[in-house]
């Protein structure tokens, strides 16, 4: 018997059939059969969509899953093709990937690192998935990215905003299309300066975990560069539901801007509480008190209801964008599901397409070929204008949207309006930027 690394079910599915009947046990070894993990040898290729289906981010996960299903349809040549028509690369022909029909398996990350890894492992070991994608938090993204690196499959991150994902925890087999905390801050800062001036005192409330810290670090650096003074930064427990005892001290702190470095349920509650305490009507130092939410999500904005009105933040993508790619995607998605897609859905859809395209351009499912095809890849027609996958850290660079909670929404989806599209050059940073320091990309791992 010989040893193999990680199991390979994909090849066995067809291999076993040829072995046939009640033949004597045949022992397969990866070395002789294939050069990389889960090499799809039949007529199909399996992708793993690992999204939160239970817990606080279940709705976001459901939207991601919808986007993936749409992407699979388009890849297999069903439906209207969506962004395949606007994508600058034309390697995909609507006949699956490299002629293999795309199939998928789904799993539940539960927004827990352990569960997400278990689910991804089962996709790799049991279902023979060649690529894992999805997720709604940075902890999960980093954990699954690490797993994929070890197992030798590609990871296309879903919604993950922490600097660490392509900073100190970056991995050669992982790619992130979503923007990050640094880019949010870089995009927001000039807009905030225009709106609120350069003489402001900011008070930060920050979710007490890694994403929150990188968000705080980024926005603090960006606003201080404008001349803003940081009055205080306070960490709030992730499990907190009532933020009143953190909001109350803001009232008499002398600050005139409150920055909420919160996401998801934390953001909904802290914003609601802040508005309850009358912060939006408050006057400090002769100026209107302002609230800023650096990372916005439409799904979460909905949870905060009226409270988001007039509040600025940044977002990766929004359905109201008028470029051809976005319009095509919104049309496909809206026609199929009856409502516009979220930014998480957009990222996941694009990630699936980008992976397929990279395989097609490289002509192989081998992760190293995919990595090579994606590194330094520049494309257009997927929303957010010209986009680059930087080779050095596998971070995507594209335009970032600054948005504001809409005063007079016309429908339940029409909650945010785009204030400014910050061009890519403004949010770029050098690879060795201190906020992204530490960690190494390593080299691509094909698994075998």
């Amino acid at each position, binding site marked *: 018997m010989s040893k193999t*690394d990680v199991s390979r079910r994909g090849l066995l599915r067809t291999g076993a059939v040829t072995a046939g009947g009640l033949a004597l046990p045949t022992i397969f070894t990866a070395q002789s059969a294939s050069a990389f993990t889960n090499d799809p040898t039949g007529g199909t290729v399996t992708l793993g969509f690992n999204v939160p289906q239970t817990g606080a981010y279940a709705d976001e996960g459901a939207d991601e899953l919808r986007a993936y299903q749409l992407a699979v349809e388009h890849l297999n040549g069903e439906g209207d093709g969506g962004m395949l028509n606007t994508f600058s690369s034309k390697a995909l022909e609507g006949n699956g990937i490299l002629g293999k029909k795309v199939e998928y398996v789904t799993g539940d990350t539960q927004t827990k690192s352990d569960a997400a890894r278990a689910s991804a492992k089962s996709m790799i070991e*049991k279902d023979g998935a060649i690529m894992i994608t999805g997720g709604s938090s940075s902890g999960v993204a980093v954990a699954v990215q690490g797993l994929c690196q070890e197992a030798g499959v590609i990871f296309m991150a879903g919604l993950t905003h922490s600097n660490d994902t392509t900073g100190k*925890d970056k991995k050669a087999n992982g790619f992130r299309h979503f923007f990050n905390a640094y880019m949010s801050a870089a995009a927001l800062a000039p807009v905030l300066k225009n709106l609120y001036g350069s003489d402001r005192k900011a008070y930060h409330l920050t979710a007490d975990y890694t994403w929150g810290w990188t968000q705080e670090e980024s926005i603090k650096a960006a606003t201080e560069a404008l001349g803003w003074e940081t009055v205080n930064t306070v960490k709030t427990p992730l499990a907190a539901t009532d933020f009143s005892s953190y909001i109350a001290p803001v009232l008499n702190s002398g600050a005139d801007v409150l920055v909420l470095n919160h996401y998801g349920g934390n953001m909904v509650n802290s914003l609601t509480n802040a508005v309850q305490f009358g912060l939006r009507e408050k006057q400090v130092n002769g100026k209107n008190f302002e609230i800023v939410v650096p990372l916005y999500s439409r799904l979460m904005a909905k949870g905060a209801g009226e409270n988001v009105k007039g509040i600025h933040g940044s977002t990766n993508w929004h359905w109201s964008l008028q470029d051809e790619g976005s319009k095509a995607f919104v049309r496909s998605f809206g026609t199929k599901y009856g409502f516009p897609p979220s930014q998480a859905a957009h990222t996941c859809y694009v990630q699936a397409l980008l992976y397929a395209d990279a395989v097609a351009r490289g002509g192989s499912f081998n992760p190293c070929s995919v990595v090579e095809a994606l590194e330094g890849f520049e494309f257009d027609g997927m929303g957010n204008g010209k986009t680059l996958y930087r080779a050095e850290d596998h971070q995507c660079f594209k335009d970032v949207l600054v948005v504001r909670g809409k005063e007079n929404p016309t429908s339940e989806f029409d909650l945010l309006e785009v204030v400014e599209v910050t061009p890519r050059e403004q949010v770029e940073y050098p690879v060795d930027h201190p906020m992204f320091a530490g960690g190494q990309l*390593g080299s691509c791992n094909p698994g075998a």
Partner: protein
Amino acid sequence: MFGLNKKDTSLLLIVIVLTLFAPFILNPFPTGSGLAQFNAGYPDLMQRFAIFGIFAVGFNILFGLTGYLSFGHAAFLGVGSYSAVWMFKLLSMNVLPAIILSVIIAGLFALVIGYISLRRSGIYFSILTLAFAQMSFSLAYSVLTPITNGETGLQLTLDDPRVLGVTSTADGSIPVTNLFGIEMRSTYNLAVGPWDFQFNMGYYLCALVLIAAFYLSIRIFRSPFGMMLRAVKSNQQRMNYTGLNSKPYTLAAFVISGMYAGLAGGLMASMDPLAGAERMQWTASGEVVLMTILGGAGTLIGPVLGAGFIKYFENIFSKINDNILHSWFSFMPDGLEDFVVFLVHPFIGKGWHLTLGILFMLVVVFLPGGLVEGGQRIAGWVRGKKKPDAHQSETNPAE
């Protein structure tokens, strides 16, 4: 055999057979078939079955025997995992020292928490353990990030010092966990006709540890010490007036079950070198309580069954999606197919929690003794006998 009576020996043999042949038993359906979805014979899940089996067996030594309901046992599992990962980072990728350290650290941690918590009994004890575990979780998530790496979880990096071993392999990746050179992730694939079976080194290490842990638990159940623990549960007053000090007995049970949890945590990290803080959350502690009660508290095999049951649902049912449902029911006429899928839909995929909740209720309502009682009833029914009468079954509660 093995110093056990006939009944216990056969129980142990059953467990040995089940664990060693798990790759076959858990993969009953041919790979290509629609029912392959229900196959659980892949390394990660098999490892989880064994690891949570160990965790639950250990928990049962405390809860099943002494009746002390700890709501913070996940803390020991978490501490075990962290210790193991630190061992990988600093010492070597060999799992043996890592596992030994996790058992020791978890045991010490249990000694401290147990010493304080066991000053109270009943629900006051439960809340004390819960409070300690939640404190560990909250701090691991935030303030202790330098040690625990917070939300992301402690993982290996390309620049770990690793005294006995290499920082990174020749091709620039992180070395993998091994037992004296045998890699935990290496897997043999065996194809028989349309089936294929996976034999994973890591799983077999877990399986051997499970068998050892299970054997030890039988010995403890049948020992004078085990009898004293049952006496603690039955009547502490009498115990004290019989010249026995119940405190060290319960503390010993607490530490032993904490060490089992640490062992499970160390194994978990050995299979997958990452330790997340959620492992210590109260829901994780609650899970092992549920496993034990579901399987049958105080019975030997029950906790293992309960652990398997819950992990199966978590990993298999959560992965069934509408697409798969449609492929199963595609033989039906279109309208009926959609209707059946619509009916089943709430219980699979994102609804796996619902299914689990319903099953909890059904089991506890209809099988008061947990899954073990279900097994006994089936066995009794097969033999055509009525259930053995109450005295018999009560005097020998450790089936």
